[in-house]
């Protein structure tokens, strides 16, 4: 079971004077149980690709397989029942705080599970669980989602998706605009969810996060898959041609190598790894 793109092309505004091809013959496979990063410059098609994962968009041509669900163009045979898919693939958009609408936080988080057929009690239970997971305690349950801070709103919105217990969790730039500690906490939350068995797909511009948390990475460029592989292999080469930045740790390691150190970049993911590598390099 996995998510598989086969020759997927997507065109915005077809049949107008200005059609825009956002995806061009994309073929890729996101394995179940992975923590996959999608990276690339602004406008390279990441967000478009992500919207194919729960059939918010249908390919102009080609097919997307999500486990057994088939997402294809209108002309071809495709699955019509979207609800089971949307329960399975949880999509957290950029700046999800804009989607809040209920009177109380717990009701807003319970909205998703209720849509998928849970009773009020079960939905609320799931909501409380999800809110605990994102670090919001009981004192928040009955408050209005419009009176809390921006970072808290984001966590409520995230809980709204987590409450559906998706098998695949897709997060589009979750750390944008968060303070560094908040971003770190959020990433640790994703790691926790990943370790509990979910597949995480992360769209980001922060290469340190890719190196620190992800198991696989796809680089998109101009609507095509430019590179794929393990983060440690990817950052061993020059990524500036995709308008990407080398992670700080790798940058540091490169400079140390220039100065004569020997550093094993295969296990270099966090600052602690770098420290260890430096110590080993001295011996």
């Amino acid at each position, binding site marked *: 079971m996995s998510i598989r793109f086969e020759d997927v092309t997507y065109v915005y505004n077809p049949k*107008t*004077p*200005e059609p825009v091809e956002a995806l061009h013959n994309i073929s890729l496979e996101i394995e179940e149980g992975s923590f996959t990063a999608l990276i690339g410059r602004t406008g390279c098609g990441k967000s478009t690709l992500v*919207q194919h994962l*729960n059939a*918010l968009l249908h390919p102009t041509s080609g097919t997307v397989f999500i486990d057994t669900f088939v997402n294809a163009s209108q002309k071809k045979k495709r699955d019509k029942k*979207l*609800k089971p898919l*949307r*329960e399975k693939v*949880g*999509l957290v*958009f950029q700046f*999800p705080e*804009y*989607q*809040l*609408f209920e009177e109380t936080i717990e009701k807003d988080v319970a*909205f*998703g599970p209720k*849509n*998928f057929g849970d009773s009020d009690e079960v939905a609320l239970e799931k909501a409380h669980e999800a809110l605990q997971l994102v670090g919001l305690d009981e004192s928040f349950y009955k408050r209005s989602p*419009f009176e809390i801070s921006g970072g808290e709103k984001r966590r409520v919105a995230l809980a*709204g*998706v987590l409450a*559906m217990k998706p098998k695949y969790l897709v997060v589009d730039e979750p750390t944008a605009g968060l303070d560094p500690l908040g971003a770190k906490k959020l990433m640790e939350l994703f790691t926790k969810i990943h370790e509990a068995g979910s597949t995480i797909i992360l769209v980001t511009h922060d290469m340190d996060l890719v190196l620190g948390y992800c198991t696989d990475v796809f680089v998109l460029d101009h609507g095509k898959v430019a590179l794929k592989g393990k983060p440690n292999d990817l950052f061993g080469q020059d990524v500036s041609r995709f308008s990407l930045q080398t992670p700080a740790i790798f940058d540091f390691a490169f400079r140390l190598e220039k100065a004569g150190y020997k550093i094993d970049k295969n296990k270099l993911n966090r600052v602690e790894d770098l420290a260890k590598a430096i110590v080993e390099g001295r011996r």
Partner: protein
Amino acid sequence: MTSIALGKYVPYDTWVHRLDARTKLFATILLMVAVFLPMPTWSMTLLFQGALLVIISILLACTKTPLSWILSSLKMLWIMVIFLLVVYIVVPKSENVLGIAWSVNGWTVYWDSFAEAARIVARLVMMIMIGTALTSSTKPLDLTYALEWYFTPLKVIHFPAAEVAMTISIALRFIPTLLEDTMRVMRAQASRGVDFQHGGLFRRIAGLTSLIIPLFVSSLTRSQELGDAMECRCYDPREKRTRYRLFHFRAADFVIAFFAAAILVGVAVTSGLHLDFFSMMGVTTL
């Protein structure tokens, strides 16, 4: 959101697009008036409406507007057509020159009723065509500038021309933004299992709430932000403003304005003097 084709700007580069917005607005209004002027006889109506339809069609074709847009707006007119027909058939008219269509048990229906309904529909269609030709070839902002230009003389009687123009242009500016917001919230809620198309009434109303409230919140935030940004740049509606984009009338503008005026004058004179070309030529028509 592709259904909102009416009134959408299409970025081609035709001679109609290059015309000054003020000219286009002027010509549009004149043509619309011409379309609505009554003619003395049915054959004259047919002649003039036909001629106007040809002129407007040529104009529309020049803007390269897809024909499907017009057709889709005609689809919406169907209910109107049926309604008009019913009204005209039920309500008897004093003047009937086209003869009896049918007469059952003292209920007489004249062909005039049908002709009347057809005339109104033709007028509406032409209105839509002219309007589409204008909006598809003119950027909304240019249109506001044109409006402001026409309002300027009204400043003498303290009409807030600049403010009205600013309000209109802000409203126009935010239509695509709001549409984008709508799409964004719709996608987010669809991911949370909202089905906007199917399901019972209650479910759908709940779905709509989840769309409308975030939209209200975000548009209020946006207007607050815009107000702050404008204040930061010292916006004062009472100040005299200069403009980055300047409009210039060109030869083509004068030609078009002249043509539009000529058409209106011709139609108005014929209408006002009850001229009947056919009887002048010695042909008897209805």
